[in-house]
């Protein structure tokens, strides 16, 4: 496990937007990724990864930015959240393996850090009697109203 965060600066911003697009606010349940600070926790997950995979992560995010630019004339983080979601969903249906893998990895990281928060898992009906109620270390803090959303 390295000690430096994998996601910082622009890669953290892109990852945050990817997370917001995968789990936006509203819809079938109210909470969205934008309401929580999930990057810190995502960094903890990535730091535990094989360094060669972790090092590739910012490049994968760069690929998403560039790929959206080629398709929509704007980088991914400049798309509306609906368009961003549709763009990622398009990757899921892509005939190209690398595009499907890219969105799978993004969904995995997002779901890992989002649904580990008990109150969020409860919103989809998951309550577990055996587990100690706990907040993940230093993450999943609800953003203040001022910092919320973009």
């Amino acid at each position: 496990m390295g000690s430096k965060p994998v996601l910082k600066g622009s890669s953290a911003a892109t990852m945050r937007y990817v997370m917001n697009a995968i789990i936006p606010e509203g819809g079938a349940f109210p909470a969205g990724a934008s309401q929580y600070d999930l990057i810190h926790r995502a960094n903890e997950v990535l730091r535990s990864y094989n360094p060669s995979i972790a090092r590739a992560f910012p490049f994968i995010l760069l690929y998403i930015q560039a790929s959206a630019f080629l398709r929509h004339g704007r980088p991914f983080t400049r798309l509306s959240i609906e368009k961003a979601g549709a763009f990622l969903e398009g990757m899921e249906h892509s005939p190209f393996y690398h595009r499907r893998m890219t969105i799978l990895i993004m969904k995995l990281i997002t779901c890992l850090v989002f649904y580990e928060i008990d109150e969020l898992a409860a919103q989809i009906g998951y309550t577990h009697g055996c587990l100690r109620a706990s907040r993940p270390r230093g993450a999943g803090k609800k953003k203040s109203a001022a910092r919320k959303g973009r």
Partner: protein
Amino acid sequence: MIRQFRDYDGDIRERCDVCVIGSGAGGAVVAKELAEKGFSVVLLEEGGHHTKETWNGKPTQGLIDMYRDGGSSGTLGNPFISITLGKCIGGTTTVNSATCFRTPNKVLLRWQMELGLDRMTRANLEPYFDRVEKIINVTELPWEVLGNGVRAIKRGADRLGLNCRPLKHNVRNCRGCGTCQFGCPEGAKQSMDVTYIPRADRAGARIYAHCRAEKLVIDSRKVRGVRGSIIDPSTGRKKFSFEIDAHAVVVSCGSLITPSFLKANGLKNRNIGRHLQIHPAGRVVALMNEKIEGWKGVSQGACIDNFEDEGIMMEGIFVHPSLMLAGLPGVGARHKEVAVKYPNIAAFGVMIHDSTAGRVYRIAKGRGFIATYAIRKNDMEKIKRGIAYTARIFFAGGALRVFTPFANMPVLDSMEDVEKLLKLKVKPNQMEMMAFHPLGTCRMARSPKLGAVKGDGESFEVKNLYVADGSIVPTSLGVNPQVTIMTLATLVAENISNKLFDETHLA
């Protein structure tokens, strides 16, 4: 006492009869068996020591703390296949589904005929199986504990005349918390960390966590000890070093690490790293018309083995939403629509008895590895059939919709779709594949032409160097391998004991 990073204040120097590297299903067994016979044993583990007091049963922390590379290991090929490996005291047994099978008879026959392992008969192994199963308390759980998830598939199996039966588990007083893969919060799972390792500890074995073995000391084709580093778990950096001098060394680092470690230490046998078999697997997720709450009950409760002759094994699997939902289709609003149906979801896994052989390569210095596995056409066809059969069972059980791991047909809405899937051509890279049982990369055999170690686990090349983990299991089993690995490790321990006793006695 299990010493961890916080207990170290400097380098470690030890002298012992046997040094065991790795504390999983192989290493823990060898350490306990030899320590109880009066040998001085040192047991090294690269990961940390986690207990029910320190884990929360959730995937994220579990992956960070207890899995190698946070669960990101896998094989390269067509496609990438994720293989999760435990890295903690107890190894993968701490984070597996606790499913227990004895080695199938036809597999033992194959070992005897193809690899000359004449001692691997059912009759010879029976007492060893009994011994292992008693220690880890292999038991059959009642249906109430086996999980809500298996209810739906059992209903479908019954309607189709198939046999959905409970799996055996190594548990004691299991209440069915269902978080088996991320540490048992009740301490009910009888993994190595609560069975063999405490016994080894009581028998005097010295157990060191956060110790990464890096070098075997080999002199005149005889092993003399192990050297390595003590790793700070917060940074992953080397803090101290250790030197263990030993009469015998047992490498039990698992099928992906052991071959690269042996190669890094100059072993040349051509079978080291070859014959990798992994039981490729896929998941089938069904949306039911009723509330299932599949997380209630053990995560891998039952199996359907009617298709064993085709090399297909179906076993229950249910995981936390943070893992389950990532694999289901949909982003944004569509993801949330699927997510709120999580309580109505049932899932089952399909794994195959593979004929494909992959390979483990060493990279650079140390124990870094690359594993390759290009799944063969017949194995791919097998796994597709297994998934289609499972979908059929779910529909017979009342499923509204079934999600497959295939990119070209991710959703099935009816039995007709199952028939379409059976006829569909699926390329390997159109499937999201995973595997949990890497085996065979230092396989046992009669001669060095066929295997990397002898039938007693000793290397063909270096005296007193043994291997005891999944890598010595000669072929794919078609069933979960932990009992087989423990049984073979018991045999290896007995052989070491006899040999060391003879050497000491003669001396």
